[in-house]
């Protein structure tokens, strides 16, 4: 925890120096931004590498398949563990950061439900496609690598746009674009595009949040 300057010992005696005030204002603002940020840069950086490793592992398991078949069984536990680690870390950090915070920035039940419906819907459709005998390159390649990113990205972008949270909206749109680009990379390439693209988007978001957290209110 950053120490607060000695200025805090000065009370209503009129001796509070403007330089001390500027330092205290910036320190307090930066500390608060860090403490209530549900997606801190370090977490986004870890998530970026998790995405890279998870999608990369799948890509490594399918890149030599001609014709395309499906990811090997060995890669499934790796991906499952990474997904669980990602989920638990994200929820734990976000919950801790937003403890005691209430108001507009908290997700509403309808917004959580919309995201849940998207995720469930994406995999229900995947099951229907598999049952209908659609080719392996779609069911085990292009669709699972790209459609979840496009669907979740677009719905999340809509939710964030409705909240006028343009930074999060742009991030979500970037995720959807990564998914859309992946569609054109073929069944094996889609995994690589998704992994690298997601990693870049998350690292970019981490950099933007870190810059915002350190920005001074007083000094240029």
């Amino acid at each position, binding site marked *: 925890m950053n120490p*607060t300057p000695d*200025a*805090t*010992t*000065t*009370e*209503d005696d*009129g001796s*509070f120096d*403007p*330089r*001390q*005030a*500027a330092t*205290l*204002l910036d320190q*307090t*603002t930066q*500390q*608060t*931004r860090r*403490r*209530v940020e549900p997606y801190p840069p370090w977490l986004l950086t870890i998530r970026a590498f998790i995405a890279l490793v998870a999608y990369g592992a799948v890509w490594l398991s399918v890149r030599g398949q001609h014709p395309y078949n499906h990811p090997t069984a060995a890669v499934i536990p790796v991906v499952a563990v990474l997904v669980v680690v990602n989920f638990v870390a994200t929820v734990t950090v976000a919950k801790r950061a937003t*403890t*005691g*915070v*209430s*108001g*507009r*920035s*908290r997700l509403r039940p309808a917004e959580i439900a919309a995201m849940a419906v998207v995720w469930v819907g994406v995999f229900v459709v995947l099951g229907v496609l598999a049952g209908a005998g659609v080719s392996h390159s779609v069911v085990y390649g292009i669709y699972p690598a790209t459609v979840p990113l496009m669907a979740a990205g677009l719905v999340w972008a809509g939710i964030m746009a409705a909240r006028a949270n343009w930074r999060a909206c742009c991030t979500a749109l970037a995720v959807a674009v990564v998914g859309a680009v992946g569609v054109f990379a073929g069944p094996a390439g889609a995994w690589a595009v998704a992994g690298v693209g997601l990693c870049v988007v998350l690292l970019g978001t981490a950099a933007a949040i870190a810059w915002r957290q350190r920005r001074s*209110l*007083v*000094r240029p």
Partner: protein
Amino acid sequence: MTTEELDPLIHVPTRLKIVATLAALPDGDALSFTRLQDMLGLTPGNLIIQLRKLEDAGYLSSEKRRNGSAQKTTVALTSQGREALGAYTKALRDLLGGL
């Protein structure tokens, strides 16, 4: 420009920390009294006194909610409070630029 032109309600370390903390939250968000106290490291008595002064000036709004047997108090910066901090920050910037 002199330090007298800085808003005396904000230009006090404890109150500046309170206002800066609440202003760092997204617009429309409130913070619970206990989290605010934890973040600022103040005693409840001191925090209550300072919050009251800011609330009397219209810079803060507080809301008490009953949750079972416990009562939860949340505080938020009003638009007037945000404007006051904006003016204070600008005045500080002008002052420091002239020093």
